[in-house]
C-alpha cells in the first residue's frame, strides 16, 4: 500500500491501463501537454503520444460522441469532463446514444467507454462549477455510474471501469483530489459496483457518496463519543443501485441515513431509502433520514457555501434525531 493522493491515484490507474492495452485512449480539454486542468493526466501525453492522449477543442458533444464511435469500432476510449457541470452540454450523447446504442442494435454493438467527470462543491466555484452531477444521470438505463470516495477507490474503480465492456460514468470529486490515502497499486481489480462498509456499528447505518463519505466517517466518530456506533457505507455505485449489504446492515441497526451532495428531490438517497424500506420494513425503527444539499443552486460566498454542504455535525445530528 502506497500513500498517494486521489489525483495521483487517478493518474496511476490511467497510466497502468494505457500501458496494458494500447486500444485505450483518452480525450479531453487541456489533458495533453498541460496534463489536465486538475493534473489528473500529467505525463500521459509524453508517454503515450498525441494519438492516444487527445487534447480536444471545447466540444463535449463532439468528443463524448466520438468516444462512442471509437468504442463500437474496437477502441476503449476515456473522455474527461473537466467539471461534471459540463455534462449538460453533452447530455444527449450520453443518454440517447451511449446508454442505448447496444440495446437499440439488438445487443450486437459493444461500447466499452469511460466518462470521467470531476464535480463537487466546497472550493468556491459557484453555481455552475460545483455540482457533483450524480443526479442528472441517475435515471438512465444502460449506464453504469460509480463515484470513488478515496484514492484507493479512485484507483480501483477506474481500472475496473476501463476494463468493463459497457459505458461507465465515473464521478470524481474535486475536493478530494488532494486528499491522501493508502492505495493498493497493482493490486487486484476490485468490483466495479456495489456498496462497501467502511466502519462497523450497531446503532445506525449511514450511506454516503464521494466527499460525503469522509464527512460521514467523521460524523461516526462524533457519534461514538456519545455512545452511538454508526455503520458507514460508501455507496460506490449509483447504477446499478445495489443495496443488499445496506439492507443487512439496517436489519442490525434499524436506522438508515443517507448523505449526498445534491438536492433531495431526484437524489439517490430516495432510492436507497425506498429499497431499504421495501426490504427491511419491519426492521426500521424510524423512517429513513436523508441529509442533502438544500433545494437551490450552490452559492458562491464562503459562509453560504459552507453552510449548505452537509457537515459531520449535521450528519451526526441527523442520526441522533433518528435513534
Amino acid at each position, binding site marked *: 500500500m502506497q500513500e498517494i493522493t486521489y489525483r495521483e491515484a487517478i493518474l496511476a490507474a490511467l497510466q497502468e491501463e494505457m500501458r496494458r492495452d494500447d486500444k485505450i485512449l483518452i480525450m479531453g480539454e487541456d489533458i495533453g501537454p498541460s496534463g489536465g486542468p486538475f493534473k489528473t493526466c500529467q505525463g500521459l501525453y509524453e508517454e503515450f503520444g498525441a494519438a492516444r492522449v487527445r487534447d480536444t477543442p471545447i466540444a463535449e*458533444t*463532439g468528443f463524448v*460522441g*466520438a468516444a462512442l464511435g471509437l468504442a463500437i*469500432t474496437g477502441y476503449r476510449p476515456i473522455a474527461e469532463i473537466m467539471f461534471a457541470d459540463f455534462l449538460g452540454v453533452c447530455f444527449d450523447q450520453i443518454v*440517447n446514444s451511449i446508454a442505448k446504442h447496444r440495446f437499440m442494435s*439488438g445487443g*450486437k*454493438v459493444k461500447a466499452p467507454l469511460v466518462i470521467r467527470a470531476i464535480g463537487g462543491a466546497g472550493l468556491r466555484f459557484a453555481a455552475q462549477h460545483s455540482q457533483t452531477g450524480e443526479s442528472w444521470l441517475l435515471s438512465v*438505463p444502460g449506464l453504469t455510474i460509480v463515484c470513488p470516495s478515496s484514492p484507493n477507490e479512485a484507483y480501483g474503480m477506474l481500472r475496473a471501469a476501463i476494463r468493463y465492456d459497457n459505458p461507465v460514468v465515473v464521478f470524481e470529486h474535486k475536493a478530494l483530489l488532494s486528499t491522501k490515502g493508502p492505495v493498493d497499486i497493482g493490486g487486484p481489480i476490485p468490483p466495479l459496483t456495489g456498496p462497501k462498509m467502511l466502519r462497523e456499528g450497531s446503532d445506525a447505518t449511514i450511506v454516503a457518496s464521494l466527499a460525503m463519505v469522509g464527512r460521514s466517517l467523521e460524523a461516526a466518530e462524533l457519534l461514538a463519543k456519545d455512545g452511538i456506533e454508526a455503520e458507514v457505507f460508501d455507496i460506490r455505485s449509483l447504477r446499478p443501485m445495489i443495496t443488499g449489504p445496506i439492507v443487512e446492515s439496517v436489519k442490525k441497526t434499524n436506522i438508515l441515513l443517507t448523505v449526498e451532495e445534491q438536492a433531495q428531490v431526484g437524489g439517490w438517497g430516495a432510492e436507497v431509502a425506498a429499497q431499504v424500506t421495501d426490504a427491511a420494513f419491519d426492521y426500521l425503527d424510524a423512517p429513513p433520514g436523508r441529509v442533502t444539499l438544500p433545494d437551490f443552486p450552490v452559492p458562491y460566498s464562503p459562509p453560504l457555501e459552507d453552510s449548505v454542504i452537509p457537515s459531520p455535525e449535521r450528519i451526526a445530528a441527523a442520526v441522533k434525531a433518528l435513534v
Partner: protein
Amino acid sequence: MKAKTTTRTAKTKVKPLTDKDRLALFRMMVRIREFEEEVQRSYLEGLVHGTTHLCQGQEAVAAGTGFVFRDDDYVGYTYRGHGHCLARGMDEEGAFAELFGRTTGVCGGVGGSMHLTDIDKGLIGAFGIVGGGLPVSVGAGVTAQMNGRGQLSATFFGDGATNIGAFHEAMNIAQVWKLPVLFICENNLYGEFTRINHSTPYEDLIRRAEGYAMNAVQVDGNDVEAVYAATAEAAARARAGEGPSFIECMTYRHRGHSRTDPAKYRDPKEVEAWLARDPLKLYEAALIKRKLLTREKAEAIIAEERARQRAASERAAAAPWPDTDTIDYAALTFA
C-alpha cells in the same frame, strides 16, 4: 446542375466506372426504391409500426456513395437510412423484419425503423436525434486513423442537421484532427415541414464547410455517377491522410417527411421539377443512351427487385414476434 466545389484534387486517381459497375449502380438504386415502396405498402397494411422515414428520390446518394466504400469502412446515418443500409448489403429480410418488429430483424425487433444497425457490415448506427450521429462517426474516424489501414468513416445527414451544435463540433474536430471522415449532406431542401430558407442563411450548404476550412464539393445528388465521382475523390483524400471532406448532394424526397406527412407545404412546381429529375429515370436514360440498358431490360431489373423486396417482406412478415417472456433484456443492454 452545375456542381460547386472547393475540392483540391486528391493525389490518388479515382477508379473509373466499368459497364458492370454502372449496371450495379442502377440495380442498387432500383433496389432501394423498391425496398422503400414495399415499406410503404407494408406500413399501410399495418406491418410497420410507429413511424418510418422513406428516401424515395434520394437513392442516387446512397447508391453512389455506397459504391465507394470498402468493407472495412464505417458508415453512420439517420432515421432516413434504409438506403444506406441496403447499399452496404444489409440483408433485406432482416431490415423488413426489423421494421415489422420481429425477432429476425437486424436488431431483433428492438431497434425499429429509426435504428437499423449492423455493425458487422460497418453500419455503425442510425441516429434518431438530429445531428446525433455525427460525433459518433468522428469517433469511428479516429479509429480509422489510428488503425492506419486506409479506412474511412462516412456519415450521412440532412440539410436540417447542419443547424445543430453536434454538426459544428463534429466538423471542427474532424478538420483539426485531419480525420478520414466524409460528411455527406443530403440537401433535400426540407427539415420536416420547414423549407431550408427558413432555417439556414442560404440554400447551398457547401458554404457551411467554409467555416471549417474543409475540403468540400457540391454535387447533383440525383446523378449517381456524379455522386460516385465526388465521393471517390473525397475518399481517396481521406484514405491518403489528407483529412475530411464535406459532400453536399442536392436532392429531394418524393414523399413526406415521415409516414403521416402528406407534404402539402411544398410548392407543387418544385415537386414537379424534382420528380422530373427522378434519379432512377435519369440514370436509366443515361444507360440507355450508353446502350447498356433498354427500357425492357430496365423494367426487368425493376420487376426482379420488386419481387425480391416483396419476397423478403413476406418472409419477414411471417417471422415470429419477440417473446416477452424469454427475451434476455440484460444481454441486450449490457455486454
